[in-house]
């Protein structure tokens, strides 16, 4: 029990922070100071969660004990890496929120509690070792985010966005639950390792059900990562949500969704590729990736609102990441029982998350007193009036476009390289399309910097929100973009380890001990 608690300590810290905020907030005066306290508190607890992840990474017990709570949660390199990443997203969101909420007139303590709950849900998702915990984590996250999107309750756009997101999200949850039900029915277990073993030796007549299960699960995840054509909720939800929450959605939610997706692909469904069914999962992912990035980039081209543009850019990046999901080692066959993802997706997520957070933090400095100014034209003069925020926004754009020496460049580089390595360049056409896509994306990313720096300022002098914790958020993000961008090697190696940790070796060893009774009849039935 103690081991279980120690292994899940990052999660527990986040959960504790959520409950503490919820319980204590009513007793604090509803002043600006109290709100900024919650912002700092949230950042502190998130930082503690990151620290816990780091310590577990470094001293992470012996291998036998990395699975906690009866194969429902784990503390593998994978889960720690992703947990730290979502906690980092939460930390920067906490830092950039307080002043924004005050300005928008919806500063309530519940916001910070919900943010914690959402982060907790994400951490559970990426640490899950079973369908049950995955689904619970997903729902905790989703419910919190629905509310957060609609948090500016006096703004019709915000409430509409929350509602749309909720409706679409429910459909996705239904898909996921349906798919999980089939998986459970076929394998008789909920843990990934049981499912994997069962699927590796399917019983006769299971094929159709397996197809259905994979279809449902895939649909749900493609929805969560906002792949085309499941993407249509994204622009509305992103634009309506409070700006820091938009940042959180494009970083934390994306990280958690891809973390869980990798788990499903490489841990739960790992046996599928080996079976006689030969599901073309890899080709499917790559195709969806290519379509998603192309549509995302195309639609981003003509957006006038930077927030909405970034929503489409989030879709485009989801496309890149989907293509990155097919890159695996050792032999590059997604679905082979021993394949693990390369570090491409985790490392790319780091760069993408940090750059999005930086961009949205910088965007939330524009305008004061309830109005939200995220149109391109409203950024004019930012580079001169608030040079720091302008520089952060510009750098974030450059990183998103994938230009060195920022982190985004190395993320894209490694992703391209790993995808190319799959089966001797099988995905070369996809990679070419990706490169052309990033060419297109450079246009709309750099257009933002044009507005920030190069357009003459009109008569209106814009006010900018300046606040220490927001400055910290931007500073941390900028430093991360530049420092990891210039010295990427260490982070790349860590991402590689994270990818390799998708299936805890322990779990397979344990289950191999405990499950022969279940597995052997299946094998016998095959013969």
């Amino acid at each position: 029990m103690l081991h279980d608690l120690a292994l899940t300590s990052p999660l527990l810290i986040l959960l504790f922070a959520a409950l503490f905020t919820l319980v204590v907030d009513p007793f604090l005066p509803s002043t600006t100071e109290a709100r900024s306290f919650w912002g700092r508190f949230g950042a502190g607890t998130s930082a503690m969660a990151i620290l816990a992840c780091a310590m577990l990474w470094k001293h992470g017990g012996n291998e036998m004990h990395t699975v906690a709570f009866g194969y429902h949660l784990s503390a593998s390199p994978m889960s720690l890496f992703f947990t730290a990443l979502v906690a980092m997203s939460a930390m920067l969101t906490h830092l950039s929120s307080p002043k924004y909420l005050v300005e928008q007139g919806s500063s309530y303590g519940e916001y910070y509690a919900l943010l914690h709950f959402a982060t907790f849900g994400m951490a559970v998702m990426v640490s899950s070792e079973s369908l049950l915990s995955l689904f619970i984590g997903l729902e905790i996250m989703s419910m919190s985010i629905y509310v957060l999107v609609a948090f500016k309750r006096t703004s019709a756009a915000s409430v509409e966005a929350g509602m749309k997101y909720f409706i679409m999200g429910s459909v996705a949850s239904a898909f996921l639950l349906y798919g999980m039900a089939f998986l459970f029915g076929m394998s008789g277990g909920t843990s990934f390792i049981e499912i994997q073993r069962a699927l590796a030796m399917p019983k006769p007549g299971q094929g159709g059900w397996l197809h259905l299960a994979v279809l449902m699960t895939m649909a749900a995840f493609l929805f969560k990562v906002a792949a085309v054509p499941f993407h249509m909720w994204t622009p509305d939800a992103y634009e309506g949500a409070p700006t820091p929450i938009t940042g959180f959605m494009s970083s934390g939610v994306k990280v958690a969704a891809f973390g869980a997706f990798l788990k499903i692909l490489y841990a739960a469904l790992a046996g599928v590729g080996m079976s006689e069914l030969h599901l073309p999962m890899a080709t499917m992912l790559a195709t969806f990736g290519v379509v998603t990035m192309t549509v995302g980039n195309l639609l981003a081209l003509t957006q006038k609102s930077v927030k909405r543009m970034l929503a489409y850019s989030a879709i485009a990046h989801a496309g890149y990441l989907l293509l990155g999901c097919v890159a695996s080692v050792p032999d590059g066959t997604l679905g082979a029982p021993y394949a693990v993802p390369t570090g491409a997706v985790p490392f790319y997520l780091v760069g993408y998350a940090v750059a999005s957070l930086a961009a949205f933090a910088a965007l939330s400095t524009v305008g004061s007193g309830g109005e939200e100014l995220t149109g391109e034209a409203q950024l004019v003069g930012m580079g001169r009036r608030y040079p720091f925020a302008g520089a952060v926004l510009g750098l974030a754009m450059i990183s998103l476009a994938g230009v060195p020496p920022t982190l985004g460049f190395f993320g894209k580089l490694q992703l391209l390289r790993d995808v190319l390595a799959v089966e001797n360049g099988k995905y070369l056409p996809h990679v070419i399309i990706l490169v052309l896509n990033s060419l297109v994306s450079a246009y709309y990313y750099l257009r933002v910097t044009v507005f920030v720096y190069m357009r003459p300022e009109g008569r209106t002098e814009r006010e900018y929100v300046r606040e220490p914790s927001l400055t910290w958020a931007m500073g941390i993000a900028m430093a991360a973009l530049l420092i990891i961008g210039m010295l990427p090697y260490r982070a790349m190696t860590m991402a590689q380890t994270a990818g390799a940790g998708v299936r805890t070796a322990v779990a397979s060893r344990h289950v191999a001990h405990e499950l022969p009774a279940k597995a052997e009849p299946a094998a016998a039935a095959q013969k």
Partner: protein
Amino acid sequence: MTAFSFSPSALLPIIVLLPLLGGILNGLFGKRFSRQTVYAIGSTTVLASFLLSVMVFQGLRGAMVTDPNAAFRFEAYHWIVAGNYSFDFAFLADQLSAVMLRVVTGVGFLVHLSTTSYMDDDPGIARYFAYLNLFVFSMLMLVLGKNLAMLFIGWEGVGACSYLLIGFWFKDMDKAEAGQKAFVVNRIGDIGFVVAIFLLLAYAGGSVDFDSLRAHFSDSARAIDHAPTITLICLLLFVGACGKSAQIPLYVWLPDAMAGPTPVSALIHAATMVTAGVYMIARMNFLFALSPHAMTVVMMVGALTAIFAASIGLVQNDIKKVLAYSTVSQLGFMVIAVGAGAFAAGIFHLFTHAFFKACLFLGAGAVIHGLHHEQDIRKMGGLKKKMPLVNATFLISCIAIAGLPPLAGFFSKDAILAETVALKPDAEKLAAYYEGGFKRQAFAEAGAAGGEAADMAKVAAAEQGIKKHYIESVEHLGIWRKVAFALGLCAALMTAFYMFRLYFLTFTGEYRGDHHTWDHAHDAPWPMGSALAILAALSVVGGWVGMPFAHGHYNFFYHWLEPVLARGKELVEGELAPSVEYGLMGLSVLVASIGVFIAWQLYGRGVSEVPARIATTFRPVYNALLNKYYVDEFYHAVVITPLRAVSRALFQVVDRVLVDLAMVRGPGYALVGLSHLGRLAQTGEVQAYLIGTVVGVAALAWYLI
């Protein structure tokens, strides 16, 4: 022995970073500092680096007692690891770097010091010191880099700083253009260098680390045993060296670079940066030694440059231009040395040249400063009386550069000339190295001739033939050494002449300028004076560390460089009999004396009509020399003008129509149009969104079922 309780390796990053720190401080906050603070920051950071360099040098001496091949390495981090390729951010201080380290920081400090008196009325002093410190930083990166990538960072860094400093007074269009010329000409060389680095990456195991390259090219089993490939790489590297070290045909930028402040010319365009090419070739000696053909090209380019630049120097009237052409000529000598396989002699000349040429430039700076920015030697003369200290140091340096014993230049120049004729590549060893390549070629030839599987006897015969051909071709190269020697000797004669012409015209005789200037002329102030004195002293004694064996002394300098240059020395061998060596020595002394004597005859004995008469008699030759053989005009007509015409045409046709319209705007408009179409689907209604989901599920189902 030294009393280090820690490894000097840890000092390497500090040595490099100190000048960077100074540069950043002066560059960012210099405007708020007082003049004295700027001086102090700029000079002390370089002085500290110098002291640390001495510690590293002594530490290396200590370490060599136990391990003769000792070197200090500091690996900061893996910079990029990509597949089989890896670049580290790492420093290497071996014997060669240690020498360079001391020259760069030592001369660098003296130049910083004397700048404080040369630039005492310039408002941009903080910017100047920031650039100068950045230059020292880049130069240290260059000499301490542990791999070619690091070296290249420094290489580009010094190029950029050189550009900034030449164009320091950028409001003067000519000076700004001189900076641009230097930069562009250097870029031409850099292309060769970069391609060579890529080739090495491709052929030598994915690393351009010097240690691993040396290991790679010392082992014939792992080698690229294809001689033309190695020759190609060497030549490309040499193209880079030509740019940086101002060799024909890329030397044209260096004389123009004199537009910068004179101390800059002393540091960058005489003592340090321009020697980077020579340093790089010496560093890559294990590679160059494998290709006698490329070496011969290097040597001949050096010899031609030496005599070409020296001949231009004969008639120039600008004090700095004379020194500039002398620098080009002396660099030619260094390149002769490394091309002849006398790597140690080349570095030795680099070492001594740094002292006397820096001293000459700083002396010229003192003269120019003393005469209110007068640079024409026809308007000087008799300055001996006004500037005794400058006169003394200038004279010492002139003797040194002319190559009269026992000053520094004599030993190094003599070593180069002697070794040029003495050495010869070991064709047998080289043939053994390339054996694998010969075998493959033999198989190919015999197979092609036979049409089917070749029998072994035929192959063996073919191989023998190829080998014999190779050895003969290497031995035929010997004649060029004699040519280079003769050219070098002529250049030495000219050097002695034009240096003393410069000295006599400037310091002796009657003053030929206006009285106002003469009355205000003054000797160098103490910071510059002390720098001059130190450099002059080094010009006297600097050569003694490398006295040749024939003197019965222990040649410390050659022995010191042995670990770095061992491989090069192994492949290029040769000894001179002491009698021949003494003979050559006598010849060089004689030649130098003749040069000095002619200069004294023409210019040293008061006003003489002879030079003018010679000029009128050989009018075409004189004009050609005075106008630098019209090389700039030639480049302008043959390279620049056609290039401009072509690029204008390309701009009008290819860029405007093909690229802008057909490739950029066209697809751009098309994409934007598509984007507008796509936006139609985004109606804002949830029902429409759910339809999208249905489409997605259908697509999935189509894939899976």
